[in-house]
């Protein structure tokens, strides 16, 4: 086999089932490439020796009926992994080793996958460039000193650089789709309630969802099939009938109606993005689907709403990191002093900024004006989608307002950083599924993605649309291994 790491997930599985490749060979290849790619800074913690041992065990008694037989997979360091350090990209969990496994990752190991390592991310998934990680920024394999997007930046970079065949990220406001778009990969955020949040370090509970990131749509469908499960350990998990996403995948989308929301033509959007969108529309038409102009009038309120709801929940979710029970502790004169030192030294600037915003909007006297109002607007945004879904089956938008930017370019301007999520955030607020697929490149040669937004629980339709578009787009990522 010339280069194992370039194979897609489905190709690897085929080779394993055909006994052309062993789990050990595959695992070794990804480890070797990962070892040579340290410059990308994608791994926070590797699990290489354990992975090799697990691969060996798999090969001795291979179970080919499993969905991910002997496949090594690195995951975002927001998923708690039993016995393997889990940091959420934060100093405050620098030394934290969970004695338990997240439901999503457990589902993968149950299907034969092997943990390759834990991938870098923005601290507590707060960021759009992976620059807020305590463990340093991640390099985008597309080009030197480019951000890989965020918060699942380690995941998107590792995937694009072929350090892992697929990966899983989490998406609170775009943290799967935006980095996928920045790295020329596929990223899917499922309907809220599809994938269990049990064992995922929480950022904003009402928005967080885990999802697959992959080289192609078929791989995403398979991985989603593995991780999308009802879980009674998560009270917000929903027990709906899931499709067999991979076997039901079809490129026949004839007759589907795809909405184009007028409000996503935001001011100052680069012409390249506009052109990309047009390309996408033409491809959709080519596939035999119908284009319908739609209106989502409350879109402009999505970003401010998100930046109230998410920090509010985060300010409360992150209260447990207090130095008392686990994780980082800075000694203090007394309890309050210990709290202050621990949290001052344990959290980075962006996390502190959001805790402050969240604490403020929940304070008595401000609650009604901010949090309560944001919740009401959130309902309106959701209603916008409900309304248009009476007429269309899915919605096509750009994934991001730009391609990957330079490391450091936006670190001093949080608002411009937050604008990255303008197309992805409404999807989280409405709890809908969304997928980003690589569609083209800008004039710098950096990948750009389009987003397909679906009806609740209708991941199958957006996968099908993405699958048929993917065939026509035939996007190839231009990765030069510049870091080696």
């Amino acid at each position: 086999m010339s280069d194992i790491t370039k194979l897609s997930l489905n190709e690897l599985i085929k080779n394993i089932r055909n006994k052309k490749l062993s789990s050990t060979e595959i695992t070794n290849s990804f480890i070797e490439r990962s070892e040579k790619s340290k410059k990308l800074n994608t791994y926070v913690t590797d699990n290489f020796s354990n992975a090799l041992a697990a691969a060996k065990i798999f090969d001795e008694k291979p179970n080919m009926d499993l969905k991910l037989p002997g496949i090594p997979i690195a995951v975002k360091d927001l998923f708690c992994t039993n016995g393997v350090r889990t940091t959420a990209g934060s100093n405050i969990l620098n030394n934290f080793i969970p004695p338990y496994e997240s439901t999503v990752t457990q589902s993968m190991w149950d299907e034969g996958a092997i943990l390759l390592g834990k991938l870098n991310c923005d601290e507590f998934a707060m960021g759009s460039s992976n620059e807020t990680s305590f463990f340093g920024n991640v390099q985008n394999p597309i080009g030197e000193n480019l951000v890989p997007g965020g918060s699942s930046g380690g995941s998107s970079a590792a995937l694009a650089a072929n350090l892992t065949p697929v990966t899983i990220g989490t998406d609170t406001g775009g943290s799967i789709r935006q980095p996928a778009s920045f790295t020329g990969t596929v990223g899917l955020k499922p309907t809220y309630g599809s994938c269990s949040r049990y064992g995922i370090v929480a950022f904003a509970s009402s928005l967080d969802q885990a999802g697959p990131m992959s080289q192609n749509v078929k791989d995403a469908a398979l991985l989603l099939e593995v991780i999308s499960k009802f879980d009674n350990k998560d009270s917000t998990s929903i027990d709906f009938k899931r499709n067999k996403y991979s076997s039901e995948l079809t490129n026949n989308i004839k007759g589907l109606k795809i909405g184009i929301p007028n409000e996503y033509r935001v001011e100052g959007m680069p012409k390249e993005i506009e052109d990309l969108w047009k390309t996408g529309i033409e491809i959709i038409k080519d596939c035999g689907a119908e284009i319908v102009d739609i209106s989502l009038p409350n879109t402009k309120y999505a970003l401010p709403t998100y930046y109230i709801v998410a920090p509010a929940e985060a300010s409360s979710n992150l209260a447990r990191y207090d130095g008392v029970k686990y994780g980082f502790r800075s000694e203090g004169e007394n309890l309050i002093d210990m709290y202050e030192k621990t949290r001052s030294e344990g959290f980075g600037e962006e996390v502190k900024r959001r805790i402050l915003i969240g604490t403020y909007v929940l304070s008595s006297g401000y609650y009604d004006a901010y949090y309560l109002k944001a919740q009401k607007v959130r309902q309106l945004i959701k209603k916008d989608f409900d309304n248009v879904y009476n007429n269309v089956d899915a919605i096509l938008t750009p994934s991001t307002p730009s391609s990957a930017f330079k490391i450091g370019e936006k670190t001093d301007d949080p608002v411009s950083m937050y604008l990255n999520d303008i197309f992805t955030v409404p999807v989280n607020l409405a709890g809908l599924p969304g997928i980003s697929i690589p569609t083209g490149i800008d004039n710098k040669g950096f990948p750009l993605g389009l987003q397909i937004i679906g009806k609740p629980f209708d991941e199958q339709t957006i996968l099908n649309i993405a699958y048929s578009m993917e065939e026509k787009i035939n996007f190839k990522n231009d990765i030069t291994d510049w870091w080696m």
Partner: protein
Amino acid sequence: MDVMAKNNQFFIEREQNKYEVVIGLEVHAQVTSDSKLFSSSPTKFGAEPNTQVSLVDAAFPGMLPVINEFCIKQAIKTGIGLKAKINKKSIFDRKNYFYADLPQGYQISQYKYPIIGEGKVILDMADGQKEIGIERLHLEQDAGKSIHDIDPTNTFVDLNRSGVALMEIVSKPDLRSPEEVNIYIKKLRSIMRYLGTCDGNMQEGSLRADVNVSVRRQGDDNFGTRCEIKNVNSIKFMQMAIIYEANRQVDLIEEGKNIDQETRLFDTKKNETRSMRSKEDAHDYRYFPDPDLLPLEISDEFISKIKDEIPELPDEKKKRFIDKFNLSSYEANILVSDFDTSKYFEEVIKNSDVKLATNWITGELFAVLNEKNLEISKSPVSSNNLSKLINLIKDGTISGKIAKTIFEEMIDGDKDPQTIVDQKGLKQESDPKALEELINKVIKNNTSKVEEYKSGKDKLFGFFVGQVMKESKGKGNPQLINKILKEKLNG
């Protein structure tokens, strides 16, 4: 202390003015449940520190609360017992604050939308009934325990209680005296024990209360400024705290000073309340709906199923006891106030006389339980044996006096009264011939007294009865002795 309590009315008096005390209680009752409100950890009292703790209770990253359906049922049951509105939709909120024994950094509680709405509790006071309004009942998690006295420089934290389900039962400001508080707490506890929703054990902290106290001049319609006395864990301390606090407030008013709305602590050693924090320093808890939990929706079927499980409650039982057994309101109250007592009573009267049973339970048995500091469920005399004893009295086998002697013996190992009667030959002498012989003997030995009696000193009759009884070694049937003696003396 210038306290006056007449006709169950309670006032604090000063030279010119009379003050009424207004009290509202927030009772924290631990839900009787094998597992916690949002986790499956056990809730055993007195376990080794930090042995009843799950990853959820210790708030590990990514851990999520899952509601315990049994605790919801218990809250609804209690709501039914309080004749309260069951809210079909309620919401769990996060109450945010930092403390070492609060692992999540927030307590999951219910704020704007509690599971139970308005209800009432009927108090049986010495001078009649009084209704106390219930404002709401909501479910919340307990915190852990900080232990400051093990080590001079460190605080220890025990998370066994962390996440244990509590019901906070908020009364309206309808209570007017320490005695009403006493009766109210006991009634509340009685209802919950009947329902099996809270064991009401104050020593183990299963029942504690925040006490809101204000005072106003007699006749005033408006409430005064209230102070909240936090976390008082016995009825006696509640009463002491109320009396201290009400007098403190009255003194302030008398001196023309303002009462500050504040949270106070009761110092049980000094018998005084002192300021904990002022209104200005009050925590901003930043309540908001817990996004980890969906709104709690309860169906009509769920509620009606629970209604089917509700046992007869003290108020209804009392009515039945009065109607069916002809008990006085006072007797019925005593018998129903504790579920186990009522259960014991009903077991005894299954096969024996109600009147005798009432007297024996509230008399002899209560005295023994009191003396030995025992609950009736641990009674040294079983209901079955007490029932037998009563039947022995009723059918004339033994006299009431002998019964008391036998009862003394029964206490030691729950002995069968019939066995004691047989072994000790305590069977009542009811043979008229045998009694007549004894009577003849007494008359013969007391000729002068007989003369006195016959010449009109009726009171001496008791003396003869006593002498005959003595001759019978206490076993003589008193009714028969009376009868024969009368015939002999008057004949």
